[in-house]
């Protein structure tokens, strides 16, 4: 397949929330992904695909189909485990990827199944990895995720729950790590996402079209330039891209140094409680996103105001208590409450 030129991330005009959410996830994958909600033609897919260019290198086990993490020796697939015991494990590095899950995917391809070719040739069973294996350690991108078949969604939920994909198909019994950053886009007019899946996304951003005339023109001009001469256009942005890459790399190394203090934890507990959100995922995500946000701003200390800042990305989709309640955040109410509680804005 011919390698296509990717539109530079830094050349995307506006959509700051979306860009921020994607970068925060790249800095701290444990945030748990982003759902980008908005009308068509608002650079949703462009942004996700553009992210590929900024992704950091990761240390992986050489030749592993599941992309096992070299630094996480307790979390290897059975094949690597075996190699490790024999001392044959080799290290390599590769940049994080954006793995796409097309809507038409079948169950066996998503979860993985028996390698038929191998079976016919040798008469032996062998596991053929699927998309969930490829996605391990990477970004799993599902365009129009609300249109994904129910039973495929179930598989995603299953794997996302424990970060492990269990396969019990066609005589194959296997399990491998499957920790991925789930990035989805959807156009809400075409149907909802199941609340359970919604809750799996760390962050949510709503994107709309740009209404400012000059910015709209800017968007079109840049796009036309890119289409005329993709490589030249990328060249023009290479400096900015590198700058952003550096920010991400620096932030990633800062993360380990940041320790959320009492105040931060209290803030992260208070906000979801105030909003009446189910479960504890919101609390955790608030902290992680706040830490990533602090790191992005080159700080080694995270403060309650960071929590407040990221709450607009973490909370909106968790507002819903059943399928019939709207998942919007009453920002005015929240703002005034935050003001009185934390004295921040």
């Amino acid at each position, binding site marked *: 397949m011919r390698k296509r030129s990717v539109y530079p991330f830094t050349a995307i005009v506006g959509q700051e929330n979306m860009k921020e959410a994607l970068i925060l996830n790249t800095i701290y994958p444990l945030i748990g992904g982003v759902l980008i909600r908005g009308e068509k033609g608002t650079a949703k897919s462009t942004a996700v695909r553009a992210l590929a260019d900024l992704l950091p290198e990761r240390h992986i086990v050489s030749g592993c189909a599941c992309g096992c993490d070299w630094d996480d020796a307790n979390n290897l697939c059975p094949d690597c485990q075996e190699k490790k015991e024999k001392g044959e494990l080799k290290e390599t590095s590769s940049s994080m990827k954006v793995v796409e899950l097309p809507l038409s995917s079948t169950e066996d391809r998503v979860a993985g199944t028996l390698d038929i070719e191998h079976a016919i040739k040798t008469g032996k069973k062998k596991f053929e990895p699927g998309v969930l294996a490829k996605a391990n350690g990477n970004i799993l991108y599902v365009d129009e995720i609300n249109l994904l078949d129910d039973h495929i969604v179930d598989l995603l939920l299953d794997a996302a729950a424990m970060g492990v994909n269990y396969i019990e198909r066609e005589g194959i019994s296997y399990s491998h790590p499957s920790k991925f950053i789930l990035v989805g886009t959807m156009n809400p007019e075409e149907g909802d996402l199941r609340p359970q899946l919604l809750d799996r996304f760390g962050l949510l951003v709503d994107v709309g079209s740009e209404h400012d005339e000059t910015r709209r023109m800017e968007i079109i001009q840049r796009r036309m330039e890119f289409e005329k001469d993709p490589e030249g256009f990328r060249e023009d942005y290479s400096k900015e891209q590198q700058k952003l890459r550096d920010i991400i790399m620096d932030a990633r190394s800062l993360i380990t140094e940041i320790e959320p203090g009492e105040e931060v934890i209290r803030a992260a507990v208070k906000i979801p409680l105030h909003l009446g959100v189910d479960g504890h995922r919101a609390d955790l995500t608030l902290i992680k996103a706040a830490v990533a946000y602090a790191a992005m701003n080159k700080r080694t200390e995270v403060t309650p105001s960071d929590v407040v800042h990221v709450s607009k990305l973490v909370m909106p989709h968790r507002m819903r208590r059943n399928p*019939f309640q709207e998942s919007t955040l009453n920002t005015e109410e929240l703002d005034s409450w935050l003001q009185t509680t934390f004295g921040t804005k």
Partner: protein
Amino acid sequence: MASDDVRNKVRPNYPFSAIVGNDNVKKAITCSLASPDITSMLICGPKGTGKSVMANSISSIAGTRKIVTLPLNATEDQIFGGMDMERTMKDGKKALSDSILLRSDNNILLVENINLLPEYLLYQIMNAAGTRYNTVEREGISETHNCELLLVATMDPDEGGLSEHLLDRFDVCVFTSNIDDETLREEIIKRRLAYETDPKKFIDSYAEEEEEVSANINKARSKARFTRVPAGYCGAISEVCNELNVAGHRGDISVMNAACAIAALDDREMTNLDDLKNAAAICLEHRRNDRDDDQQQQEPPEPPEENDDQENEDQEDDKENDERDQEENPDNDQQPPPPLPQQDEDLKEEVFSIGDTFRVIDYMPNAEKIQDTGKSGRHSQSKSNDKAGRCVGYRIPKGKISDIALCASIRASAPYQILRDHKDMAIVLEADDLREKVREKKQGNCVLFLVDGSGSIGAQKRMVAVKGAILSMLKDAYQKRDEIGMAVFRIDKAEEILPLTKSTLKAYKVLAEIPTGGRTPLIHGLLKGYEILKDRITKNSSPVMVILSDGRCNAPYTAGMRPIDEMLSTARSLSESNIRFIVIDTEIGTLKFGLALELCRALNGTYLCLEDLNAEFIESSVRLVMREV
């Protein structure tokens, strides 16, 4: 298979002892592990409340028992067992393959999101768990093996429930709850962060406690069967079960087993009342049937002799509060006032709030009009022919094969490989070996709610109850992934207020805004409904029209015709279409015209009164009748 050992390495689970709160779930877990006679437990709860974490934490306190996970992608042969391809090829003799149930023998079977698993698989799994053996009759294999397991399942009821029958099969069922206490929540977050930062260190710091719990369970497990129950207690258990209207005897038996296990965990040889109380709380909640339709009390059951308070009262209170929050409308009268003035043309427009919701009965008629489906019936999975959907099995192909099940074909050919001419291949397939896939697609119905918005429905706030009923049906439709639409007829026309959609959120908004007042142009409504649904009539699916009205059509469509006559003749001609009709009669009062029933007969549809929809109401009235007899 070796991967079981690997699994525990793959996943350093969050330790059981580090779980904060949710004492009822913890109790249920230790009790189920300690009882050799409890074979299944279910953890229910909203998302993100730690169901999965708690279920998985079992691995560190289960002693020698291992956790076998049943993922949602599991194929049938892999769960129950089938033919082992490799061995069969080698020996030319059919051999039983390794299966999940085989591996679960003497172990723990973990199924997450069990409500998303196809029901027919569930029945077989529950059966194996209950009977403690599994019989394989597949692919020419006929074998029975022991299957002593503890099934641990989780589910989020928001995603669709289990049938009562399946629910009853679970010995133990507990509900996780949201923790609203700030300090507890902070503690949860702190522990979780510590675990994520350095799992090994965190797990090590709880190792001692885990060891203690595990040892205690082990000891209790050997003693539980020898624990004695004082003579009077059996009667008390039966009494409680009776009082809670628990059907069948599984409840009684579970309580007894659980009580013994709890006593054994406490190192006692005799069960006491507290044990019974605790056992009842985890064994009967999902089986009780004593609720009034609107007043769902959530207090855990108590044995009759007891009257002191329960430890988990706080959280039950919260549940109740939540429920109260959802009941937006307090003035929904159960006892309707005297009859309405007939032909009331109240032109005053009003928007009523949405009434109480309830669990709806399975009101949709079987899709008899649908041709060519494997299983008929609503929302059930229909067999799809377009290579889409979940593959649920395979069959010997009829006619030309298009969707080949390669793995099954290979297995079918395995016994003959010794005899075949191989060239360079290990497996040679012949035409007779070929199998094709059977796929199942969860096919929701396409349901149009045709709502009477006339003044007569507005009278006595009947609309409040109607809206409540619609919302209840919408909830049901959501769980079944139906496509829904809504149309209203009032004054002099019918309007499509919600085009067919899967977005239940939109439906809710639209429903809240339906105005009431004016005449009843039912014919306009019927025709509008037909217009909306006619494109959805296909060979494989027949859409559903749910008409909520009292049938008192009083707006003419054609000038000069009597509205009622015209309504009935329109209905008769619509009955020929491939639409399934359900008429929900909203008429109340002593003076009834019964026009909705006539309409329904003309449509050849299913007739229900509004109150009949409420599953709990029906259950309680059936019980009432039964008691009188």
